[in-house]
């Protein structure tokens, strides 16, 4: 104990002179536990006629790591300059080590360069003392650090900030829409499929395509109108289906046999014109629109209330799809 107190109180001094320059290095303790801090102080004393270059320390002094270093403290008294620097060192290996001599370079008044260094300081790094008589204990669990008031305030601020940004975006979009005034896409009136099909058939008739020799285009358009009608009416992808596939799908819906045969005749007959260069006579061409119109009329929902389909009654009508 006496030895320990002695070593702490009377710090070990490494003192070196190079003529007029004196370098002194001291530590607060020569025996520390592994990882403990060693307070290492360096003092350089020299006359003002000598220019001293204090070394720049990076991250270590020999095998000792620098934990922290203070700025240089320089004082001048009666033509003598005193430079002090405090450094905190640490080491993570147990054993006996030396803190290497501290080297200071200087230039004399006559221009000659020289250097001075302190003495090395022996330091004992003690390992962790293990009491083998005690039972082995588990590692302590992690400590839960309670959230500080600052942290709570920070999180609250983030939430409020995000809410503000969200509202700002919402307000901006709303304002923009309002200022655009009426640029919203106008919704098309919900025209029932059969009404639409009948309208399109009338338009096709008015085009007088077959009279102009465009028989193939005439049949293509006619079947397209009917197929689109089936798509909207029955929810089948008739435009992407072949005639055979359309007929197979239509078998799942209740309809008159004659209507079914009429649809098949219209589609297969049109296929012949479209793909087999069939040249129908004028009467056949005329018949296409009539036939298509009849199909639409016979398959449209049976009950209509004030221009809108009555879904409830529609479900009970004869054209309701049923799973086969």
């Amino acid at each position, binding site marked *: 104990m006496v030895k320990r107190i002695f070593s702490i109180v009377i710090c070990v001094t490494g003192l070196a002179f190079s003529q007029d320059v004196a370098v002194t290095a001291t530590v607060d303790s020569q025996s520390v536990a592994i990882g403990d801090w060693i307070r290492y102080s360096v003092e350089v004393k020299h006359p003002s006629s000598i220019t001293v270059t204090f070394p720049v320390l990076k991250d270590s002094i020999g095998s000792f790591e620098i934990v922290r270093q203070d700025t240089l403290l320089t004082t001048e008294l009666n033509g003598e300059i005193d430079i002090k620097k405090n450094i905190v060192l640490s080491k993570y290996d147990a054993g006996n080590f030396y803190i290497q001599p501290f080297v200071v370079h200087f230039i004399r008044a006559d221009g000659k360069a020289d250097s001075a260094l302190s003495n090395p300081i022996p330091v004992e790094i003690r390992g962790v003392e293990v009491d083998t008589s005690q039972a082995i204990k588990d590692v302590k669990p992690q400590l839960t650090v309670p959230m500080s008031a600052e942290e709570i305030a920070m999180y609250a601020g983030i939430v409020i900030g995000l809410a503000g940004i969200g509202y700002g975006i919402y307000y901006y979009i709303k304002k923009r829409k309002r200022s655009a005034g009426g640029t919203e896409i106008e919704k098309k009136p919900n025209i029932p499929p059969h009404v639409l099909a009948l309208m399109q058939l009338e338009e096709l008739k008015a085009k007088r395509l077959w009279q102009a020799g465009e028989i*193939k285009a005439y049949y*293509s358009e006619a079947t397209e109108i009917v197929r689109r009608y089936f798509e909207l009416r029955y929810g089948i*992808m008739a*435009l*992407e*289906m*072949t*005639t*055979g*596939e359309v007929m197979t799908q239509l078998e799942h819906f209740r309809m008159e046999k004659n209507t079914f045969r009429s649809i098949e005749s219209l589609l297969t007959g049109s*296929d012949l014109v*479209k*793909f*087999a*260069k*069939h040249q129908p006579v004028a009467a056949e061409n005329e018949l296409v629109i009539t036939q298509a119109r009849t199909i639409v009329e016979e398959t449209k929902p049976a009950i209509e209330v004030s221009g809108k389909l009555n879904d409830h009654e529609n479900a009970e009508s004869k054209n309701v799809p049923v799973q086969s």
Partner: protein
Amino acid sequence: MNYDIKAINEKIQKESAFVDLLTLEINKVIVGQKHMVERLLIGLLANGHILLEGVPGLAKTLAIKTLASAIDAKFQRIQFTPDLLPADLVGTLIYNQKDGKFQTKKGPIFSNFILADEINRSPAKVQSALLESMQERQVTIGEETFKLDEPFLVLATQNPIEQEGTYPLPEAQVDRFMLKVKITYPSKEEELGIMRQNVSGKYAEVKPVVSTKEILKARASMQEIYMDEKIERYILDIVFATRNPKDAQLPNLANLINYGASPRATISMALASKAYAFIKRRGYVIPEDVRAVAMDVMRHRIGVTYEAEAEEVTSETIVQEILNKVEVP
């Protein structure tokens, strides 16, 4: 080109009469597998080779053997193994000690119908030798080139369940097959028929009902089948949808397709559609014909991305989606 559809229709109806005879003869031995038999006929008529994929025991060999017997043509089965050499397939030059000259020994490829069984069991050099013969329809042994007999139809099989010790066909070589047909298990009723037929030990004798000459004549007639521009454009729409799915309103497929179908797919689809129309005894092609062959023509010609593989999306799913989306003319 000026088409007289009525005359073509009549001609096709007359010349395709053998299709029913041939099908009946094949069906004496093959129970079910209508799809496979139909595709064999398409390959035969459209002069395209077929890659068959299916587990063992689904009558792949029997089907082509029966087809060869019913057509009175030469048939060869080549079992592809890891030690097979190109010379085992195409033939080689043998030194004749008597006259001190090299003599050509033709390989089994010199037949009308070839069954390349488990083609992916042989290394690339053998596969290349076969696929080259398929494409060029000729074989060079030493310095001499030999034309292969017509009809020349190669049916290659792949077993989808065993991948160890196999050499998968590269994409460029798979593309040379006009159709890739997937064979599924027969139905319960069909399998009952198969069981009864085999247990009884009485096997129907297949007689030649068509000559190779008639097949070649049918091929020539098939070329005359009318294909409207609308159908041609429909085929193009389908093929282009595999390359630019976004243009076909299928943006969801863009990340799933690595590469789309080649122009060879377009040609194959047109030829196979005509062959299908011929089988259905029609002188013109309708969208049904295209739809009927599209899956078999396209499934091996679309490369899927890693994303698709991760999502378990196959090329078949992609083809089906395209067929469901592209408007029929």
